[in-house]
């Protein structure tokens, strides 16, 4: 009788352990997509920054803070895009582990915008590292290792899921290389709303000419807009690109002045609701739009 009870108890506890999910909060749509792919049904995921929300402007609500406090891991992209992070860490205390998924990625730096717009000056790190597929592969490895450390019982599942996702990213990279090769290098001039595509530019030989700075809160000066108009006319740029979460007012003015067309909306700060609900979809949509617009 005792042995039967022991077997029943052991089975109960092992079943309970098998169903215990790793609670993960995510502060970016990019880390949410990585976490879904690596964690699968072994994690309980709270995506706090939803598709179409500007991460430059996002501020967690009290209910978000509660969800974060209940989580074991919090995934963020880093490089100063989550300006509220220090306060959030102080608020939820040391129980929750914050995982900087961009920690192993070498940041591109660039000159900061004009003073008076609420961010640091001199040079600043570009936080939009997800526009390089190579960087997302590095972040996937960070997420996989964090999940294994927090939930070693499901190590083989996380390893297999991550390997499958990395293979998908390899396919995506091959597709992207072939897509961009359709466009002559002389036409790889990317005029966008804000400065979010430096990593893409570095991988595929584009020159980026943003209207705004790194943050969507930056205001373009009239001098900068005039210089852009001259550049677009001089270099014969065929299209300029808006963003899914930005008002394309200035870009529309630029198209009127230059004759360049509005090439479409790009997903700069994360995933969207329609064509870009997953990371591979976002990359495919953005590159198809860019190459189609500039050809």
């Amino acid at each position: 009788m005792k042995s039967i009870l022991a077997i029943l108890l052991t089975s109960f506890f092992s079943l309970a352990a098998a169903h215990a999910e790793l609670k993960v909060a995510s502060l970016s749509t990019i880390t949410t997509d990585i976490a879904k792919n690596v964690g699968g049904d072994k994690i309980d995921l709270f995506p706090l920054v939803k598709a179409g929300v500007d991460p430059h402007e996002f501020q967690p609500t009290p209910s978000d803070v509660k969800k974060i406090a209940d989580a074991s891991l919090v995934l963020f992209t880093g490089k100063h895009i989550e300006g509220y992070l220090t306060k959030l860490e102080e608020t939820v205390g040391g129980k929750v582990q914050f995982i900087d998924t961009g920690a192993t990625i070498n940041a591109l730096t660039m000159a900061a915008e004009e003073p008076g717009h609420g961010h640091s000056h001199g040079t600043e790190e570009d936080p939009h590292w997800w526009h390089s597929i190579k960087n997302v592969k590095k972040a996937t490895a960070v997420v996989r290792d964090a999940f294994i450390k927090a939930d070693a019982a499901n190590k083989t599942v996380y390893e297999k899921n991550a390997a499958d996702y990395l293979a998908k990213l390899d396919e995506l990279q091959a597709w992207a290389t072939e897509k961009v090769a359709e466009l002559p290098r002389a036409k790889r001039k990317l005029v966008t709303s804000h400065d979010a595509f430096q990593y893409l530019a570095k991988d595929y030989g584009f020159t980026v000419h943003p209207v705004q700075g790194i943050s969507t809160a930056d205001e373009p000066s009239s001098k900068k807009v005039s210089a852009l108009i001259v550049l677009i006319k001089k270099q014969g740029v065929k299209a300029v690109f808006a963003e899914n979460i930005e008002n394309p007012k200035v870009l529309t003015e630029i198209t009127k002045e230059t004759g360049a067309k509005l090439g479409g909306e790009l997903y700069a700060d994360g995933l969207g609701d329609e064509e870009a609900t997953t990371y591979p979809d976002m990359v495919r949509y953005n590159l198809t739009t860019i190459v189609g617009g500039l050809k």
Partner: protein
Amino acid sequence: MEGRPWVRIALLLIGFSLLGVPVWSMTREKRLRPALSNVVIAAPAQQLRVIITFAEPPLSFSLKYLDEVLCEGAAPDREFSYNWEIAVPPEGVDLLLKAGWPPSAPKTAARVEIFRDDTRLVDQTFWTQNSLVESVTVPGTNPE
């Protein structure tokens, strides 16, 4: 006036000359100076030699520039070379290399070298397992 025919001839000549200026202006061959912003200086064509060395010959293979397939199809030997005449603009040009090996093939490598005369413009090695899709940039200026 009537007794001075040379005066009449002179007036007639002056009249014709004055009329000739606008007629000449309207009918001359126009040589418009293009706006500086629209000047496109075509790069001269260059004779390049592309050499690809495979650790293992692939099953399928292609070289492509924009929409133009330079060569594709049958598996080349370990070393493959192609003479490519191309006008390289200052921004350079991208050559797309695709190759595929059997699914069971071990990790392999492909080395791409591009020469202009005796100058090596490109020397890149790519490592891969079953398939390779890589873009190789020929620089627009000769690296010293």
